[in-house]
């Protein structure tokens, strides 16, 4: 039996004595795109970071392809939130993408021109070919997001974990990311994204995980996004209008002429 790209059992994460994640269980299936959605502060980013070992967890088991992360790191790529770095850093888009290759290059050895070419190819894949030499602060928010994606692409991993890739990006970047997700799927890869927008989640992703400190529901988008589940996830915070919007955006729902 082939192992799942990611399986989490009973994950508990606390931050300063406050529980952020409570007995989270989830399974990610290969070759599909999955979105993690939930209200703010629900622990979505925490879930990703805890899975990757970036923050300590109180308890729980996390397996990537049936193994602990440190054994299969080369098969997993992480795309952090854009805000997590200082974009004023003196590096170019190409330099950032090349960082995805550092592990392959190895300790102390320099970045060679062939690595730079590989970086350029990854940048071309996300539509940023002519921006390769630009210093990253001279890129727009959406372009910066795509640089992060290109870096993950350069790793040639199988599982991609992305933290809010669609947050505050322009239309062109949104299209580029969607195209990228589609391509990754076609190549047999698996994608998990923390997503902030209920309106688009059914359209962009195959599966959805509803998260509010604990996993409320997971499965195919059409099955999971029921008013009942949404109420359980968002509680009173989800207004009637939001519910209506989500209803309409579900695949198969009646569309306006």
């Amino acid at each position, binding site marked *: 039996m082939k192992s799942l790209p990611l399986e989490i059992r009973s994950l508990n994460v606390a931050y300063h004595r406050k529980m952020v994640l409570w007995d989270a269980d989830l399974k990610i299936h290969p070759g599909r795109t999955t979105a993690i959605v939930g209200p703010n502060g629900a622990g979505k980013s925490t879930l990703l970071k805890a899975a990757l070992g970036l923050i300590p967890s109180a308890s729980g088991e996390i397996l990537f392809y049936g193994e602990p992360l440190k054994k299969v790191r080369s098969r*997993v790529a992480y795309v952090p939130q854009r805000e997590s770095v200082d974009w004023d850093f003196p590096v170019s888009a190409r330099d950032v993408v090349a960082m995805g290759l*550092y592990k392959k290059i190895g300790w102390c050895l320099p970045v060679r021109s062939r690595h730079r070419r590989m970086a350029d190819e990854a940048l071309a894949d996300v539509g940023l070919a002519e921006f390769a030499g630009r210093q990253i602060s001279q890129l727009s928010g959406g372009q910066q997001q795509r640089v992060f994606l290109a870096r993950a692409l350069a790793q040639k991993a199988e599982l991609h974990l992305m933290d809010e890739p669609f947050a505050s990006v322009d239309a062109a970047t949104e299209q580029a990311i969607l195209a990228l997700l589609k391509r990754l799927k076609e190549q047999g890869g698996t994608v998990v994204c923390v997503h902030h927008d209920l309106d688009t989640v059914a359209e962009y992703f195959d599966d959805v995980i509803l998260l509010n400190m604990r996993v409320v529901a997971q499965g195919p988008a059409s099955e999971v996004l029921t008013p009942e589940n949404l109420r359980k996830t968002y509680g009173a915070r989800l207004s009637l209008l939001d519910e209506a919007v989500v209803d309409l955006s579900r695949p198969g729902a009646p569309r306006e002429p």
Partner: protein
Amino acid sequence: MESFWRVLLLQDHNTRVVLGGACLFGAAAGLAGTFLLLRKRSLLGDTLGHATLPGITFAFLMADSFGFSPRSFLWLALGATISGVTGMGAVLMIRKLSHLKDDAALAIVLSVFFGAGIAMLSAIQQLPGGQAAGLERLIYGNPASMTASDAWFVLAASFLVAVICGCLLKEFTLLCFDEAYAMTVGWPVRPLDALLMGLVVLVTIVGLQTVGILLVVALLVIPPAAARFWSDDLRTVTLVASAIGGISAVVGVISSALLPGLPTGALIVLSAALLFGISFLLGKKRGLLMRYFVEREAARRLHREHVLRAIFECAEESDPVVSIDALLAKRPWKKNHLASEVSLLADEGLLTTDPSGSYVQLNGRGDSEARRLVRNHRLWEIYLLTHADVAPSRVDRDADLIEHVLDPRLVQELEDILDDKARERLVPSNPEKLQP
């Protein structure tokens, strides 16, 4: 004056030693300091410097018990290292065990450790033999007292810093830029960080003699900050930072020969400050003056294009001879600003004005230039309309900004992307007419 030339021409052996040692320290500090700056921990150097004092004084007091000469620099350096590292550990501990932030932890360790050092210094001052004076030199710095063996130590330390930073350049770069990502990929982030901090400690120890405890932080902070104005490429920044550090040290030592009695360390720092000021203003990439010129140039280009477009559009709507008043009505221009641009365009040979100056007309070249700009602008408007669901009423504003960023190549792509119908049809002057 004669002594100045002696120093400058490096005739004195002692001077050569001092200059060499100081210069190497400056370069090493600039290099290590660059990573500190990128890590946003510049002021850690201040805490580190102050935290070495108790170690130095304690080592001094304990020297006899351990059979060392209290004057031995290596022995004192050992004490300095241990208390410096302890200080950094204390900073981490405070951050981990409480909700106090970095700034508080740094200030606490800095002041408490330094206080302990001062208390022990007061004990040393009571000892017979006036040995405290030598220690005070470590507080203010006294490179003139550098011996050949001290200089060898500086050389070895600087070399080590350079080699490690050179070998681990990409590792340190990644660590400073995106620690979380580095962790996920499997880099040993904690050990790398510790190594980097270790280099900073090493540079601090080297600096004790050159500029003293209180000013070491200056050479860790000022040269890298100055270097950043000259380049957007990390490797270049580290090189420039080392250069600025080294040059400041040299200038400081030479000034010290000219102005005896003034503390050399302070002169070195002031030289660095001067170089910072120059970089701040004239730095090629981010210097104030440079940016001012770039922005002024961009604003000028923008204005020129606005004027040409406005003239073309006015001409399209009615008469090829366009009145200044009609132009003024198009955009919120100031009359002088418009007039000056019109005369510039006339000088360029793109348009002609009538003798009274209230009418303009584009000539052949001006017309094709304006046409190109207008086409750019309208193609972009159409792209935004059909591809980005932007409300028509907003298009003009947005388009104005984006078009001036457009590459001629990108324009070509837009023309290819666009529907053939749009290209065959006359490009409409008002995008609102495009609605189905």
